[in-house]
């Protein structure tokens, strides 16, 4: 190390070597550092404040990197046990091209673990060229089933649930309640169509039935009243429950209590506000399985500005799983960590009761789904009566015999 200290004199290198130098001085001999990178886009519209007419806030601004930061606190002790230091490197680039530059630079400096915070299409495009690289990517915010299906890849792990897992959690609850007949109100966007389609497949799997799909339009135009008036949209057919496929959450928030029949309203969105009963990876009001502790740690991390949401949870879980795998492997060696992470007998605590593990066939993290309203957790899926020959968590999402993923 000593000759390198001379470089401190050179202003160009000063900033680069300073931190490394300090660290070397503090710990003798110098400990290796394991860096976990978080990659995303700087102006990701998913994380901006969601506003509607008259500045009403539908959802606060967020940054899923906060979840990773919470998990990095655990790294101190894991580091003490393994004799390594951990670092989180958050890079938000202006576009995918710039993000590739950041990735190559980090990879060249030896970084192997990348949390990638991109929407489905961007994520698929971003990771595809790196299929054979000796790195691990963690999808922390894209629910698209396609990423676990045709577009899966062996070094892409998903800690965020798939849309299908959310839908299956909800469908189990409907079957459990005996609410088998569903009226679907579907919005005009392709995202709404995808939500409705995934939900319909899931409904069939659990013996529920979509009685009708009706298109709504977010307009006040009286000529479109059949499509913008909730009473007209919910009349002339019988159903047990109304499912709203509205990824913006703007129309849907006024559906509960406005239906012609007195029926509960349920929904499913990716990052949007809660409408009625909704399935999610995480919820701030969860009282069980130690989740209050994680929520409190998260809220302290963000100075109580906001509450933990799905993508925060997924980023937290990715770092947590990595640390856990290193503890299990008793090493920070890449191959050993990867094997421990994907081990079939892994039991990773994700504060939702049933321990999580990664599915070998599509690299999705199995996990319970939280069923909640805007301020209360109603239940957790899988519900007790849904059983599986290998793992009850595989009652949620695409199971091995049905997967389109070829690793």
């Amino acid at each position, binding site marked *: 190390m000593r000759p390198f200290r001379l470089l401190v004199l050179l202003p160009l290198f000063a900033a680069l070597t300073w931190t490394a130098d300090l660290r070397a001085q503090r710990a003798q001999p110098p400990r290796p550092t394991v860096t976990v990178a978080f990659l995303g886009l700087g102006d990701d519209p998913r994380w901006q404040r969601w506003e509607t007419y008259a500045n009403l806030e539908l959802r606060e601004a967020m940054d899923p990197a906060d979840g990773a930061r919470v998990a990095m*606190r655990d790294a101190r002790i894991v580091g003490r046990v393994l004799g390594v230091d951990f670092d989180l490197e958050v890079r938000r680039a202006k576009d995918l091209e710039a993000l590739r530059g950041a990735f190559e630079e980090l990879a060249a400096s030896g970084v192997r673990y990348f949390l990638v915070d991109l929407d489905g299409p961007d994520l698929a495009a971003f990771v595809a060229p790196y299929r054979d690289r000796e790195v691990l990517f963690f999808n922390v915010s894209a629910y698209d089933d396609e990423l676990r299906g045709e577009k899966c890849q062996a070094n892409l792990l998903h800690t965020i649930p798939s849309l299908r897992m959310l839908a299956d959690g909800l469908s189990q609850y409907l079957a459990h309640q005996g609410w088998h007949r569903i009226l679907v109100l579907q919005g005009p966007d392709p995202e709404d169509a995808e939500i409705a389609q995934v939900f319909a497949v899931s409904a069939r799997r659990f013996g529920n039935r979509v009685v009708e799909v009706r298109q709504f339009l977010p307009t006040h135009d009286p000529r479109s009243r059949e499509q913008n008036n909730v009473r007209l949209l919910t009349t002339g057919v019988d159903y047990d429950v109304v499912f709203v496929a509205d990824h913006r959450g703007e129309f849907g928030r006024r559906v509960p209590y406005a239906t012609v029949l007195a029926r509960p309203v349920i929904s499913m969105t990716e990052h949007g506000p809660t409408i009625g009963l909704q399935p999610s990876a995480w919820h701030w009001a969860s009282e069980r399985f130690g989740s209050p*502790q994680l929520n409190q740690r998260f809220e302290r991390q963000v100075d109580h500005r906001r509450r933990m949401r799905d993508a925060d949870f997924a980023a937290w879980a990715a770092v947590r799983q990595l640390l856990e795998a290193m503890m299990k492997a008793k090493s920070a060696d890449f191959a050993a960590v990867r094997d421990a992470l994907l081990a079939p007998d892994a039991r990773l605590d994700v504060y939702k009761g049933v321990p999580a593990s990664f599915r070998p066939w599509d690299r999705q993290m199995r996990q319970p789904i939280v069923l909640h309203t805007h301020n209360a957790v109603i239940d957790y899926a899988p519900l007790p009566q849904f059983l599986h020959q290998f793992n009850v968590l595989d009652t949620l999402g695409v199971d091995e015999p049905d997967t389109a993923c070829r690793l």
Partner: protein
Amino acid sequence: MIPRAAPVLAALLLAVPQAVQAGAQGLVYVSNEKSDNITVLDPAQDHRVVATIPTCGRPRDMEWDPEKRFIYVACADDNEIGIVDVEKMEQVDAIPYIEEPEAFEFDHAFRRLFVSNEEDAALSVVDLETREVIAWVEVGEEPEGVLVTPDDRQIWVTSEAANLVHVIDGETYEVIADIPVGTRPRRFAMTPDGREVWVSCELAGRVDIIDTETLTVKESISFLPRGFRPEQVTPVDVLITKDGSRAYVALGRANHVAVVDVKSREILKYILTGNRVWGLTLTKDETVLYAANGLSDDVSIIDTATLTNVKSVPVGQIPYKVLIRE
């Protein structure tokens, strides 16, 4: 020279032991995490609820002072250890500024309090006289169970999130060892010979047995009562009898207490309890085992001779820990 108040004083002093004697076994105190109180049961009256004592917010672990006059109770929502006078049936004092306390222990001289401190991922050592934090040891996230060895020379702490057991020197407060154990370690029990520490691993569904010489896990006992799935088996509290022959393990969502023969590691029986059984306490003569059921808001009373649950008593919301005054 005897002051006039002496007879009154004597009467007051006499009153204390009398109250202790009331009931063959003494009253039973149950902390209720969600209703912020302690339920008092009288075994002499068929475990009828005789009082409810309001406490600080989210009371969890409880310990007696040496005279069993005061209950120290960890209140996670009020960041303090409340002190409840069981004669007055009220909280009379508190040790403040302890962030989110969950489990704690005293040393055997009753001079120091060791409390796991969730917010800072640390074990705090509090001087009971000055009430000041005299030491602070960095441990893994969500520290929970605390064990003080009988000679006060070591303090053991679990870290639920880091899946570690930390062994800390009782004098210098240096970390002696970080021992990797099963997922979500919760509570400890030490065998009377001091050779083994049993630690419950909630999400691994097992108890890991740590050799106190080598400070490594030498054996594990997994539990699976009939009709339950492995993920429902979530052990929390663990007790070992004074003669070191038998262990009781509360199996959480598997709604049973496991009875283990310590020597052979054989599981002798699973005793049916209420939902999510966790806090366990034995009477002094070890004939009765109380088990707090966190999700059915009741306490199971188990006869240890027949190993059967003889009665369930409704208490407050989310009962956590049971103490007996005897």
